[in-house]
C-alpha cells in the first residue's frame, strides 16, 4: 500500500489533514500531530473439545496532539470527518495560549521500514481456515498425557493500519499484523490439579503456524503442566538466581527497561536519573532495546510519532548509554529520538516505551553457570512482572524453575515471586552465557493504562543474589 491508499482508507486528503493541524496550532502550540488508526481483530476459542466461541472487534479513530513546551493537549474522535477532527484539534489546541502561529511546510512522505512482511493478510483468512489448527492441537494435547482433563486453546489475530502526519511536514504510515495461539491445560493426579500454558506470538501470518509449531504448542503446554506435580517451593530469602535463556528477559524489562524510559528521567523520578555514562554492570553486559527484529512481537516499522525505529543500546559493555526517548524527552535532552514513542491506540498520547528488550550473548557457558551455583534456583518460565520506577524495586513471578544445590539441578519449583533492586541487580550479574534466545511469547507491557506488545530475550545469566519468595 502506498500513501494514497492510506489516505483513501481513512477517507481524508492531505489538504484536510493540513487544515486540522492548522486548527491544532491555532492557540499558539509549538507542535501538532495527527494519528489515524484502523484495527480489526479476531479471536476464536476452543473449550471442552469444541471451537464454540468467536469474537471480533473493529476500532477506528484519530488522535490529535498539540505540544506547548513540555505540556500536552490531546483529543480524539471516532468519526473521521473534517468538522469532527477540527473540533478535536480545537480542544487539544487549548493547552497553549499565545499569539504565535507556526507555518506548516508541504507534506513529504516518509517511507517506513519493512520488518514484518507476511504472506497472507489476516483480513483474507476466514474462520473456517483457522478452526482445524485448534482441533489438531486439542487432539495432540489429550493424546500426550492421560492426566490432562481440560484444554483451552485460543487463536488471535489482528491488523492495524496507521497514518501519521505532523506540523513539521512529515507524513508516514504503517501496516502492523499480529497473531497468537495460546494453549492452556489442566491436569489431575491423585486429586491434585495443576494448570499451565504456552503460547507463540509475533507479527506473523498464518504460515507461521507450521506442523512443527503446532507440535510445540501442544507439547510445551502439556510438559509444563504435568511437570508441576513434582514441583515444590524453595526456601524463602536471598539466594543465587540463574535465569534460563529466553523469556527470562523479563528481568531486563522490569529491572532496567522501565527505569530507562526517558519520561521518568526527564521528570527526575527514575532511579536511573543521572546514570548515563556511568559504569553500572560488568563489561560483558550489553543490553539493547530493538524495534527492528524481523517479525518479532515488539518490532515496529515506525514509532507512533512517525520516527524510524532502531536498535538502542541501553547498556554497552557495562556502561549506561542511552534512555528510550519520545519526542518530548529527546528535545529535553537534545538528542535524536530513538523511535520509542508508542501508544496503545488513537485514544492515548504517545510515551517512551520498550520494544524488544534483550541482552547480547556473553563469554560463559550454561553448564559452567549452573555448576557455579551453591544454593539457588534456576527460573525458567514467567507470568508477569512489575517495577517501582523511583525506588527501583522490581519483581517477576516465576511459574516454574528448578532448585540448584552444589552445582546440580535438584528438583522443580513453582509459583514463586522474585524481588530485587534495578541498579543492584545490574551490578550483581556475574555470568552471561553464549546461548541467547528471544522469547516468542505474547507479552504485553502496561504503563499509564496503555498496553503495547513487546518482546524480550536473554542468554543464560547468573545473578549473585535476589530475594526469592518461598516458605
Amino acid at each position, binding site marked *: 500500500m502506498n500513501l494514497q491508499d492510506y489516505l483513501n482508507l481513512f477517507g481524508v486528503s492531505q489538504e484536510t489533514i493540513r487544515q486540522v493541524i492548522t486548527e491544532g496550532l491555532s492557540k499558539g502550540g509549538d507542535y501538532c500531530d495527527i494519528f489515524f488508526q484502523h484495527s480489526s481483530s479476531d479471536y476464536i476459542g476452543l473449550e471442552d473439545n469444541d471451537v464454540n466461541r468467536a469474537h471480533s472487534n473493529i476500532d477506528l479513530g484519530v488522535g490529535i496532539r498539540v505540544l506547548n513546551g513540555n505540556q500536552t493537549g490531546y483529543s480524539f474522535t471516532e468519526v473521521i470527518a473534517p468538522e469532527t477532527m477540527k473540533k478535536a484539534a480545537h480542544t487539544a489546541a487549548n493547552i497553549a495560549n499565545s499569539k504565535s502561529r507556526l507555518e506548516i511546510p508541504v507534506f513529504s512522505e516518509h517511507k517506513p521500514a519493512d520488518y514484518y512482511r507476511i504472506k497472507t493478510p489476516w483480513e483474507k483468512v476466514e474462520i473456517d481456515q483457522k478452526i482445524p489448527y485448534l482441533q489438531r492441537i486439542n487432539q495432540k494435547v489429550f493424546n500426550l498425557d492421560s492426566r490432562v482433563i481440560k484444554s483451552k486453546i485460543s487463536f488471535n489475530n489482528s491488523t492495524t493500519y496507521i497514518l501519521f502526519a505532523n506540523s513539521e511536514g512529515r507524513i508516514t504510515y504503517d501496516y502492523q499484523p499480529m497473531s497468537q495461539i495460546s494453549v492452556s491445560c489442566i491436569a489431575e493426579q491423585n486429586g491434585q490439579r495443576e494448570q499451565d500454558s504456552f503460547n507463540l506470538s509475533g507479527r506473523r501470518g498464518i504460515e507461521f503456524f507450521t506442523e512443527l509449531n503446532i507440535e510445540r504448542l501442544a507439547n510445551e503446554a502439556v510438559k509444563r503442566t504435568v511437570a508441576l506435580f513434582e514441583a515444590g517451593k524453595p*526456601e524463602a530469602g536471598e539466594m543465587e538466581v540463574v535465569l534460563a535463556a529466553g523469556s527470562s528477559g523479563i528481568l531486563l524489562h522490569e529491572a532496567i527497561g522501565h527505569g530507562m524510559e526517558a519520561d521518568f528521567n526527564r521528570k527526575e523520578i527514575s532511579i536511573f536519573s543521572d546514570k548515563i555514562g556511568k559504569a553500572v554492570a560488568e563489561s560483558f553486559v550489553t543490553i539493547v532495546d530493538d524495534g527492528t527484529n524481523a517479525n518479532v512481537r515488539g518490532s515496529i516499522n515506525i514509532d507512533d510519532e512517525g520516527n524510524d525505529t532502531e536498535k538502542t543500546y541501553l547498556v554497552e559493555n557495562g556502561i549506561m548509554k542511552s534512555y528510550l526517548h519520545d519526542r518530548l524527552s529527546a528535545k529535553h535532552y537534545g538528542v535524536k529520538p530513538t523511535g520509542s514513542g508508542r501508544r496503545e491506540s488513537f485514544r492515548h498520547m504517545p510515551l517512551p516505551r520498550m520494544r524488544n528488550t534483550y541482552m547480547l550473548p556473553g563469554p560463559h557457558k550454561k553448564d559452567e553457570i549452573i555448576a557455579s551455583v551453591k544454593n539457588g534456583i534456576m527460573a525458567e518460565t514467567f507470568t508477569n512482572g512489575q517495577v517501582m520506577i523511583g525506588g527501583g524495586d522490581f519483581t517477576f513471578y516465576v511459574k516454574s524453575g528448578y532448585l540448584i544445590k552444589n552445582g546440580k539441578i535438584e528438583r522443580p519449583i513453582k509459583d514463586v515471586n522474585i524481588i530485587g533492586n534495578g541498579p543492584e541487580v545490574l551490578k550483581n550479574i556475574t555470568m552471561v552465557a553464549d546461548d541467547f534466545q528471544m522469547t516468542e511469547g505474547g507479552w504485553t507491557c502496561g504503563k499509564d493504562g496503555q498496553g503495547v506488545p513487546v518482546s524480550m530475550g536473554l542468554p543464560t545469566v547468573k545473578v549473585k543474589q535476589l530475594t526469592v519468595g518461598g516458605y
Partner: protein
Amino acid sequence: MFSYKAASKQHPEKINKMMTKTEKESLADYIIDLAKKNGANEVAVDISLESEVSLQFRDGEIEQLQESQQSGISIKVYADHKYSSHSTNDLRKDALKQFVERAVKSTRYLTADKFRELPEQKYYPKNLGRDLNLLDSDYKNISTEDRLNIAREIHDLAKAESDKIISVAAGYGDAIFSSFKAHSNGFSGHKEGTIFSTGAEVTVKDDDARPEDYYWVQSRFKNKFPSPEFIAKKAAQGALNKIGQSKIKSGAYNMLVENRAAIKLISMLLSPLSASAIQQKSSYLDGMIGKSIASEKLNIIDNPFITGGLGSRLFDGEGIAAKERTIIKDGVLQQYYIDSYYGKKLGMEPNGGSSSNLILNTGNQSVDEMMNRLGNGIFLTGFNGGNSNSTTGDFSFGISGFYFENGKLAKPINEMNLSGNAKDFWQQLMEVGNDPYPYSKWLVPSLVFEGVNFSGL
C-alpha cells in the same frame, strides 16, 4: 418501568455520540432485525456512549489535558446454538450493516453448543424503576478551570509537605456515560452514570533511590471526594515514610494489611469463585460450597443496590437481575458467581457472573489499636507485582510497608515477598478493622493475619 418498542426497522438516521434514549432503542431494534434477517435466532445488543476529561498537573504546570467522546456497539449472536460476539466503534451506515452481516456469517462456522442461548426471561429484572443515584446531575456545569483547580490544589499542598519531595503529579478525571442493552427475547434496559477520580503521586529523594507513593480516590459525585489536604498529605507522607526502606529477615510474622492494599487479597479470593473456573476445574474452591474456606472472622456480602455505589446496578452484563448475595458467612462459602452459560454447563441456577459492590464485615478496632494489640509484626501498605494460582491456591507477592515493634512503626520495609497458599492463609485471618476503604466498589477494612511467610534477607 420502561418498555421499548421501536416503530421503524429502517436504519435510523441519527447515529452519533449524542443519541437520546429513543434513538438508541431504534438503533438496537434495527441491529436485532438485521441480524435475524441474516439468520440469527437470538441477538443481544449493547450501545454505549461516554465523554471523558482527564488532566495532570506536575511540578507547577499542566502537563496533560485530554478530552474525548466515544461510542461503541457490541452484539452477541446466537444461531442454532452457535455463538459469537462482536464489537465496533465504526458507526457509519454501510460499515455497520457489513459488521452485522459478517457477525452472523462468522457464527455459522462454529460448533453448535446446546448451552449457548440468551438467559431465560425469568432471570431478567421485573422492575427497572429503582434509582440507584449513579449520576451527578451537576456534571454539565463543571468547567475545565474547576477540574484544573482540584488538581492544582492537591499538587501545591503535597509539594509543601517537605523539601525532600522531588516531584508531584496530581491528576483529575471525570466521565459521564450512558448505555442501552436490548435482548431479542424480551429484555431491555438503560444505564447512565458519572465517575470522578483524583489523586497524587509523590516522589522523594533518598540517597540514590527516589521512593514514590500515591493516593487516589474515586466517587460517583464530585463533592464526595475527601479534602485536597487529606489526599495531598496521604500521598506525600506515604512517600516520605518510605525513606530509608530496606528488607528484614525472612520468616513468619503477624501481618496487618492496610485497607486499600487488602483489596488485592480479596480479589485473589474471588477469582476462583467464578462458574467458569469451577466448570473448567481451575479453582481450588471447587466443591467447597457449605465448607469453611476462611476463618470465621470473614463475612462478605455482594450488594448491588448501594445508593451512589461505584459497583451498583439493577442488572449485570447478561441482563440478569441483580440481587443481594451472601458470598461468605462466618468463613463458610455460600455461593459461586454463576453466569448463564457456565451455570447451564454445571446444572446450577445463574445468579450473576460478576461482583458488584462488596461489603466485608467490619470489626471495632482501628489500625493503631490492632497494631498495639499485636505488638510486633509487619504493616503491609502496598503490593509490588506477584501473582496467585487459582487452581492450587499458591500465591507470592512483592510487598512494601513497615515493621512495627511494641505497637509503633519501627522502620519502612521493601523488597520482600509475601508467600503462601490461600487455603491456609485465609484461615489465619485473626481480625478485621473498623475502617472500610470508601473510594472503591469493594469496601474492605484493614485485616490482620497470624504468622504468615515473608522472604527478605
